[in-house]
């Protein structure tokens, strides 16, 4: 089995609200990312997928955030590192690309200077070498005229080009792990296809592990090998991509997959999940999906189900198996 790049164990992230109040955004999240695989972290807005990734990068403000659990990145326990040690991890071991390429770049700095900044911070290359590396990086992400682009400002580039620059910057110190937070959400479909192809190429050529955070199940099916589904701050299901789409086990995953309109399969009405995501400050007792779940029983409202292994690499957090649920529904 490939080397494990990132291991998150029992991660809980809380944010301060008011003077003494803490809100739990993510709790009990565990997963791994190995070299050369693309892992999808999916869920709807507010499910905690971005909070999880920012916790791994330690990008939350210390004063207002409490993180517990264990995050092992490249053999080091991230939560025990000093700020300086963490700084050198970012870029070298792990880097991140964001949703809004336009706003993630500094608008008053030339592309070349921004790229050089990242490279000089993490290596001790000379000015000439930094320039060469920048040109090579831009070329590798498919920017047609790298020398020209280095002199441009972000506003002179299109969204797709900016995202390529972001990827070039993230890959410039050859991190083993890349975290991509909704990298294509702000882009048009034809440009999205280009960026996804680029990420797949990076994985193939450099054996990079990629944690892809997205709400788009189409993107997941397209390039991920394994998928983690989150709902209201919990992981509810994890499985290889084929298994997840063919035999989703958690009622939320099933509902989510069914509610996506699918090209080439025209339906008159879409199956939908009733209700909406619960408020972080007022999480229901028991299973967090119970209020929206058509199978929910008394037990579901009392017991919060743990994530259990149901097959070799398939875990799911529901008190009942699919068969039991169908029987209960038929019985009612």
């Amino acid at each position, binding site marked *: 089995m490939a080397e494990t790049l990132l291991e998150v164990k029992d991660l809980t992230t809380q944010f301060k609200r008011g003077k003494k109040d803490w809100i739990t955004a993510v709790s009990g999240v565990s997963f791994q990312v190995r070299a050369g695989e693309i892992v999808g972290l999916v869920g709807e807005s507010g499910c905690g997928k971005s909070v999880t990734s920012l916790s791994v990068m330690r990008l939350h403000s210390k004063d207002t955030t409490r993180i517990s659990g264990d995050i092992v990145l490249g053999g080091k326990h991230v939560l025990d590192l000093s700020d300086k040690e963490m700084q050198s991890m970012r870029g070298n071991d792990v880097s991140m690309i964001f949703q809004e390429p336009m706003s993630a770049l500094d608008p008053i700095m030339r592309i070349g200077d921004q790229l050089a900044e990242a490279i000089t911070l993490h290596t001790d290359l000379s000015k000439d070498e930094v320039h060469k590396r920048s040109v090579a990086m831009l070329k590798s992400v498919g920017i047609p005229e790298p020398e020209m682009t280095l002199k441009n400002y972000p506003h002179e580039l*299109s969204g797709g080009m900016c995202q390529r620059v972001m990827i070039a910057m993230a890959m410039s110190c050859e991190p083993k792990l890349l975290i991509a937070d909704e990298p294509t959400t702000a882009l048009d*479909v034809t*440009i999205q296809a280009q960026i996804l192809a680029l990420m797949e190429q990076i994985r193939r050529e450099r054996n990079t592990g990629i944690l892809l955070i997205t709400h*788009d199940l*189409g993107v997941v*099916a397209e390039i991920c090998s394994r998928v983690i589904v989150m709902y209201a701050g919990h992981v509810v299901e994890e499985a290889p991509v084929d298994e997840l789409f063919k035999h989703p086990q958690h009622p939320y995953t099933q509902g989510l997959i069914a509610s*996506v309109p699918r*090209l*080439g399969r025209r339906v008159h009405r879409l199956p939908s999940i009733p209700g909406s995501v619960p408020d972080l400050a007022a999480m229901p007792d028991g299973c967090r999906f119970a209020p929206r779940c058509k199978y929910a029983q008394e037990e579901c409202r009392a017991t919060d189900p743990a994530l259990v292994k149901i097959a070799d690499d398939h875990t799911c957090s529901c008190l009942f198996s699919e068969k039991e649920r169908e029987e209960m529904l038929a019985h009612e």
Partner: protein
Amino acid sequence: MSNVKSEPLLSVRHVSKRFPVGKSFFGRANKFVHAVNDVSFDVMPGETFSIVGESGCGKSTTSRLINRLIDPNEGEVYFDGQEISKLPAKEFRPLRAKMQMVFQDPYGSLNPRMKVQDIIAEPLLVHTNLSAGERLKRAQELLGVVGLSPTHGERYPHEFSGGQRQRIGIARALSVNPKLIIADEPVSALDVSIQAQVLNLLRDLQEEYDLTYLFISHDLAVVEMISDVVAVMYLGHIVEIAPNEELYGHPSHPYTQALLSAVPVPDPDVKKEHILLQGDLPSPTNIPAGCPFHTRCPLATEKCKTETPKPHTVGERHTVTCHYPEKTV
């Protein structure tokens, strides 16, 4: 699709819109964004007509030209048989009751300082002579129609989730019994499970109130689910118009083909061959000569660079603006 009559409810004829940008030394505009160029289409009563395209293709501008939020530079718009693009504002105003709009951003399109029942009743205040009590009654009725509780009327928009706010926006549009609803990206700000709820609601309302929709979206899968006829736009031009099955089954324009192939399908078994388009969208201030798509088209020839293609009819309500409508990528 239920009762398609022969006369179109809305007919757009050769409409163009340019926005001035940049000024010369004497303060006259010398550059223009060509947002919409020579766009024509018909919307039949009771159908859902969709316009799809990527950002900046002019789909939203087109919808705004129809309800006169902006005025076209050229061309005519016929609504219910009447030419409306040059009507004085005063004569146009009552027509707005017949064409209502649902906006993309459910957070930005509701006044945060108004109660929900007042938001929904506001079009009634403008367009009808109903008394305050009657308006309130109608607003509460509409809340029920869109799947909210009449007691929600006392609340303010911030107390609702995105999906619920979009329902409020739809209730407001319905308040004056419009014939046409222009929905500009009504579900793109919503999560998938909520998106499905709103799409189903739009479907149900159409059947119940005999509505005609002009649906603007960038999401091809959503458009496939909801539309009867689809127009694809690129750089302010309509490149293809076709009935739903026809467009998704036999896309004829190279851009439509590329666009469809780029949509990720949520099924790992479907390994699609993507047509990866080279490069980016050209700037709308400087639209390429000839066919606007020739700079990125894998089939482009010399003819495409110089000659602007005309719409070819290739089937029932199916037109393609391409020199080589029979070729595929």
